[in-house]
């Protein structure tokens, strides 16, 4: 089974969980006066859960492509899954990890240091090895962005680590 149909199956499961919350848990908290309303907070989610599950099933079972008269999951994607191993998944996941670290460090370490390090390690992950240039570019970029955001746009960004204020 192709990736798109697996995703559709996961989506159906997600809709079931979403629908369970909408049908069985949300209405318990509803105050009595709101129960006389024709619409409840759960009405729209209920409709979405049911229609989402139906559409997901249509894709998972390959009904649409069968109706169109071609083999199911004959996807015209520009990305070839059989070449998955040729893609640079290591670099991509390292960058995603770096973004998570950046998100967690932004507050405690401060904007200037964390951004400089993010740009430095980002380039390093992609295979750049001219350390000094990377450091200078990172520092210059983080300072100019900070200046632009803080001074020009007037949005506060804490520049220094937590112990410096």
């Amino acid at each position, binding site marked *: 089974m*192709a*990736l*798109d149909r*697996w*995703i559709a199956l996961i*989506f159906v499961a997600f*809709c079931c969980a*979403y629908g369970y*919350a909408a049908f069985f848990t*949300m209405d318990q*908290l509803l105050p009595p006066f*709101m129960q006389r*309303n*024709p*619409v409840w*907070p759960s*009405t*729209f*989610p209920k409709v*979405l*859960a049911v229609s*989402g599950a139906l*559409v997901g099933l249509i*894709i998972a079972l390959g009904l*649409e492509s069968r*109706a*169109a*008269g*071609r083999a199911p999951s*004959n*996807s*015209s*994607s520009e*990305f070839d899954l059989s070449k998955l191993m040729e*893609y*640079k*998944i290591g670099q*991509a996941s390292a*960058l*995603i990890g770096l*973004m*998570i670290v*950046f*998100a*967690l460090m*932004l*507050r405690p370490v401060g904007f200037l240091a964390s*951004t400089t390090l*993010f*740009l430095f390690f*980002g*380039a390093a992950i*992609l*295979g*750049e090895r001219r350390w000094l240039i990377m450091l200078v570019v990172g520092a210059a*970029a983080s300072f100019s962005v900070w200046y632009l955001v803080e001074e020009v*746009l*007037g*949005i*506060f960004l804490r520049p220094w680590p937590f112990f410096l204020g």
Partner: protein
Amino acid sequence: MIEGILIGLQAAFSIQNLAMVIAGCLIGTFIGMLPGLGPMSIIAIMIPVAVGIGDPAAALILLAGVYYGAIFGGSTSSILLNAPGVAGTVATSFDGYPMARKGQAGKALTIAAVASFAGGTIGAILLMVFAPALSTVALLFHSAEYFALMILGLSAIAAFAGTGQVAKALMMTILGLILATVGEGALFNMPRFTMGLMDLQSGISFITLAMAMFALPEAMFLVLMPSRGAAQGDGGKIENLRFSREEGRKMIPVIGRQSVQGFFIGVLPGAGATIASFLGYAVERNLAKGDEQAEFGKGSVKGLAAPETANNAACTGSFVPLLTLGIPGSGTTAILLGALIALNVTPGPRLMIDTPEIFWAVIISMFIGNLVLLILNLPLIPYIAKILAIPRNYLIPFILFFTLMGAYIGQNNATELLILVGLGVMATILRFADYPLAPLLIGFILGTMLEDNFSRSMQLYRGLSFVIERPMTLALLGIAVLLVLLPSIRARIARNRAQGVADGD
């Protein structure tokens, strides 16, 4: 209308707004040239800046300028590198790249710029005529009709997604609607699906979602597949920007036809610049005769002018439903709608009445923007092309950083960044499986409005009876159902006919 134009001229010709148009066009062209960054990503990145300006007219003018600039920049990378940054400029590369290979890159860029200018300008004139008329009709709409109209818009987006893609587009729309239900709804004052997290109380931020759907997956693909966008040109040596008088004469009828056709395709929700450019190319190829037809695909002037005119006219056309009905027809206008809401402006039929200066300033700035693109960018092209030489090892971390900053600046909340990364990974996987992401964003943006209008009609009519009691609502919903079912019915009929022919043999 003349009064409106005067208001618009007054607003658009302030020094601040002129600076916005110029800055927007330049930034758009600059970033739009980078392979893999389309107008949607660029506008998403620019939203925090635009919202920071505070003045809605200036912000919208800036974003609109970025939009035109990005499309123009996208054509530049299609022509020079055969690496279209946007789906809407793929057709441009059919004839633009062969021309550049023949050493006529400068001429190809000039033709693209002139065609874009003409398409955008004629589109803006049509917008000026049609938008006020449509908004008068839209004022008669009640919440039941709005609900039906939004359903119609969402189904049209799914229906125009292409063969075999209708269910996928529908699924993405529903996912977008589901994401929109997270947080506190306006009508109920009750947190929903927050999983007990305080950070989700106000819902998922629209900017975060836009970044996660477009900018992040594009950057990830640049990492995953270095060959994508690695096609380097010959250092951007561009000379001789002129085209001959005869070539100009060939272009005029093409521009005339394609700007009108492109505009009306752009008005349809979901169709947009991509379909307009491909259709424009196909129509012109069929209309051309003999030698001219044979030249298509090998560097034909007409083949380059047609998609360029059509996609710019379609971009202008897509502003019609946004400005008059408040319903975005494409991913880009959906992002613009989100930005407008963040600026406390509600687009829709009342926009022209309540804040005419915004409405008209945007239209006037379209003319200025097109002019700026023509005069300012044309001489700059050889220099702008140098940006393509930035090493990708530096480029990608910067794209990622600006994506993160875009989500962080608006909220000042680090959790938002984690949500962004999570949704971005999800979007990358969805792109791998060939799911369209624009419907998700449009569903997300329309979700709150859709539910509000639905709930209001339910309360007014104490149930679902509004569907039957208001004929307009019923008609709109009927068309919506038809639109979704039509592609599969047509496919079934075609298959039966094919089988019948086979049996007859």
